[in-house]
């Protein structure tokens, strides 16, 4: 045997060993072998059981909040600079797509101070463009690059918040990630292995936990209509109508800009109210917010303050004296409810509300069945293919079988090395790869037979067969990989798993069917100089 053949054989053995190591490590016992296998091959939720949620961050909420804050800050700046202004108002983008259309209308800016006004916006609020609509009126729109940043920031902070809530629930194995290619894609995928009833978790994740303390202007009113009649159908500028919590309808007119928000929270706990014995959730403000809150409450004694959680007035107590850093939220029915609220407040509020798009739950018994069925079909497929190959190609069938098994080993090992998750469609991909992989051997063997019939000697026929079939194999593989690639781009998690297995399987197949199989033939022929027959 010549040296180059030895090198080829050594490299094949090397690849095989590296692959086996990736799958089962170096086991010292049968139990360790099973453990290593389970550690290396990550199973998808559809195989091990669990829940998957997809939710969508309503980023327009963050844009509205940003605009509200901006209005407040501009007013302060204008006051300092002694620029007179009439009113500020913003529009209401309803959908995610409309977020970027956020717009603030400034009216009645002193015409003589127009330059000053533009300078302040330009210097202090570089995220915004200002255009004049008439002599004293202006329109503020967000710069496209800043809008993209805000979108990214909102999605990212929603992910962080959801992560810390999930951690707070003790679901350690869970994963929270953005779905979709772009960083601005407002969809979040949450996978929770072992959770088969996501009801409570959904509740907790959905609570925006957007806590805001607003000054009460008027109210409560029994109905919205009643409130509107009092103001002749138009709410005063800078205010908003908010519904009160409870079965009995009630409405409050609040100042639009909150005094403090949940972002300013330092801590939150469930506690029992000493007066009513009901469960409440207490909160403590951060130092910075405490100063602001203290000044506000001191200046507004005897006015009322609304505690608004997720767009509902929980309570509207009268400010008795200066409060600096703590408060409580009433209205929890049970201790768990108060606890859950404290958990979400601690984890931080979502920067925008979330909407569920999808929920998938696979029970553990179905996962176990799927694994069993996947393995069964793989085994039956493999046995059938091997049987046909051995019957049809005799000894050369052994060659194909070795290449086929190595193909499967390489495929599984690469999945393990890149940390891919094996899903049920992924198993189907492995099974299908078995069927497709052997096609290459068939193409080569048929070609060799043809060359033999054409009168070539064994060695020459084999060489010609491999050479001629190679281009065909590349052609067929490219088409299969191209369609799988589109599948990968389009697919959801599970389908991606299928596409990945198929692509890896086909790439590995070029190595096994073309290289390994040829080396096996060479090795078979290397012993005797004169080979006249080939079992193919």
């Amino acid at each position, binding site marked *: 045997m010549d040296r180059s053949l030895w090198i080829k054989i050594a490299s094949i053995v090397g690849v095989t060993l590296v692959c086996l190591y990736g799958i089962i490590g170096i086991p010292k016992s049968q139990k360790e072998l099973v453990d290593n296998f389970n550690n290396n091959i990550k199973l998808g939720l559809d195989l091990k059981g669990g829940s998957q949620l997809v939710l969508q961050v309503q980023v327009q909420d963050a844009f509205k909040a940003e605009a509200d804050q901006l209005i407040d800050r501009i007013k302060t700046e204008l006051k300092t600079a002694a620029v007179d202004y009439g009113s500020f108002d913003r529009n209401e983008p309803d959908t995610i797509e409309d977020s970027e259309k956020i717009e603030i209308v400034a009216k009645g800016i002193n015409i003589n101070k127009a330059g000053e006004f533009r300078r302040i916006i330009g210097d202090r609020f570089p995220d915004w463009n200002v255009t004049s609509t008439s002599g004293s009126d202006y329109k503020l729109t967000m710069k496209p690059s800043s809008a993209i940043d805000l979108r990214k920031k909102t999605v990212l902070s929603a992910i962080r918040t959801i992560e810390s809530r999930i951690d707070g629930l003790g679901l350690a194995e869970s994963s929270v990630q953005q779905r979709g290619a772009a960083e601005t894609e407002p969809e979040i995928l949450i996978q929770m292995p072992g959770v088969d009833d996501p009801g409570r978790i959904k509740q907790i994740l959905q609570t925006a936990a957007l806590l805001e303390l607003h000054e009460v202007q008027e109210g409560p009113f029994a109905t919205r209509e009643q409130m509107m009649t009092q103001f002749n159908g138009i709410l005063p500028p800078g205010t908003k109508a908010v519904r009160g919590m409870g079965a009995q309808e009630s409405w409050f007119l609040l100042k639009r800009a909150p005094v403090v928000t949940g972002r300013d929270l330092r801590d939150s706990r469930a506690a029992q109210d000493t007066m009513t014995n009901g469960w409440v959730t207490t909160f403590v403000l951060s130092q910075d917010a405490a100063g602001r809150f203290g000044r506000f409450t001191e200046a507004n004694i005897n006015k009322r303050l609304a505690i608004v959680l997720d767009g509902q007035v929980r309570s509207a107590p009268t400010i008795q004296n200066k409060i600096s850093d703590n408060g409580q939220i009433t209205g929890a029915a049970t201790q768990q409810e108060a606890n859950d609220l404290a958990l979400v407040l601690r984890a931080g509020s979502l920067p925008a509300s979330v909407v569920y798009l999808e929920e998938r739950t696979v029970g553990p018994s179905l996962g176990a069945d799927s694994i069993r069925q996947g393995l069964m079909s793989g085994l039956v497929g493999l046995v059938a293919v091997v049987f046909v190959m051995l019957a049809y190609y*005799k000894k050369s069938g052994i060659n194909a079988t070795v290449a086929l098994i190595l193909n499967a080993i390489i495929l599984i090992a690469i999945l393990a090395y890149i940390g891919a998750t094996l899903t049920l469609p992924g198993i189907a991909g492995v099974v299908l790869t078995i*069927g497709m992989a052997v*096609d290459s051997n*068939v193409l080569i063997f048929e070609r060799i037979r043809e060359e033999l019939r054409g009168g070539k000697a064994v060695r020459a026929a084999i060489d010609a067969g491999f050479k001629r079939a190679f281009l065909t194999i590349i052609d067929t593989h490219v088409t299969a990989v191209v369609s799988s690639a589109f599948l990968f781009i389009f697919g959801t998690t599970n389908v991606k798993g299928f596409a990945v297995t198929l692509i890896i399987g086909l790439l590995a197949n070029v190595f096994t069917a073309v290289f390994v199989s040829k080396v096996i033939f060479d090795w078979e022929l290397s012993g005797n100089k004169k080979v006249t027959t080939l079992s193919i």
Partner: protein
Amino acid sequence: MSKTLVHQPDSGRMQLFRDTNFDFMGNKWPMIGLSLILTAAGLVSLAIEGGPRYGIDFKGGTLLYVKFADKPSEESVRSALAKKIPGEISVVAVQGTNELMIQTEMRNEKELQSTRQAIEDTLASVFGSTPDKLNFTGAAAGRVYERLNLPLQKAGVFISDEDLRKLVTEALSFRDKQKGGMLVSLDELNGVPGLTPQILNVLKQEAYLGKYLVRNTEVVGPRVGNELRTQAVLATLYALAGMLIYVGLRFEFSYGFAAVIAVLHDTIITIGLFSLFHKEISLTVVAALLTLVGYSMNDTIVVFDRIRENLQRGRKGDMTEIVNRSINETLSRTIMTSGLTFLTAVALWLFGGQVLNGFAFALVIGILVGTYSSIFVASPILVAWQDFMKSRGNNQKSGGASPAVTTAKKLAAK
């Protein structure tokens, strides 16, 4: 023709087709007729049904697979659900199991929250639950542990915390992996290592066996479905365009065109047959379709490769004869390669379970149709194209070289 499946004693080689000389091109019309009938049947069925039957992934809705101890009639479950849930409800028995597939439509995103709960509540009220006991069927490990911890201590059973957790895991693993998630009696747990009669007694006090088990739940909002549908169609079209370009580059545009028409034909027939068999197009079915786009291309390429080779060798005869000879020469490998992949697809179809059923069905059909189409659709189109170019060439310049020969020259020049 009697030479099929000849065993050659001299070489010891089994050969499916040896030196065959079927006149594929001469008999193409009956086969093209069959294709047209299948395509038409599928399209008519699609037209009657108002488009493909989309699975939950594409149309949105709620889907539950529920396993029952005693399977109730579909109608009884359907009518019980209809009282609580508006809109269309379909309840279908899963063949060969004790399961029902419950599916409801969803018209807006708000129903996403409520429908699943409504279905589970209805099931609980119809099939009974014991409110102050733990439903051992479907209970997660954490809950079983919590439920047993104190009562075990009260009953004076000493078991360490760690051992109890391990025992619960073992018991649930037995339930899910050996018994498909449902026990007939708690006594079945007797064989679980570490489960003493005292513990079993406590378990019997604290838990009952629910008569049904929700095995799988999928809730998809309609908006996601619409997006996915567009994406699926786009992905398929892009994949086809990719094929056209690749085959066009490797061969010639006419080859790419013929191959893509054949693959499109396979896709339409597969979708049509799904409609005829009342099967749903789910995400995994689209995955199968895209795989088929790539795969049924393979057979076509093998034949085309040989046509090109025969043209390059300057074999005599017109295009029809060359194509015929090429198909005959590659017949063995076409049947072998398709047949082997077909075997694995059938294995998936028979043993892959309910989740993969649609996927495997699409593969089984697609491989059959794909193999047939590379012979009876792609090749005739190629011949027709070349003949058309030839007649046009003759009109423009009478006595010009035949396209088959020009093709051969061009390719030889490459």
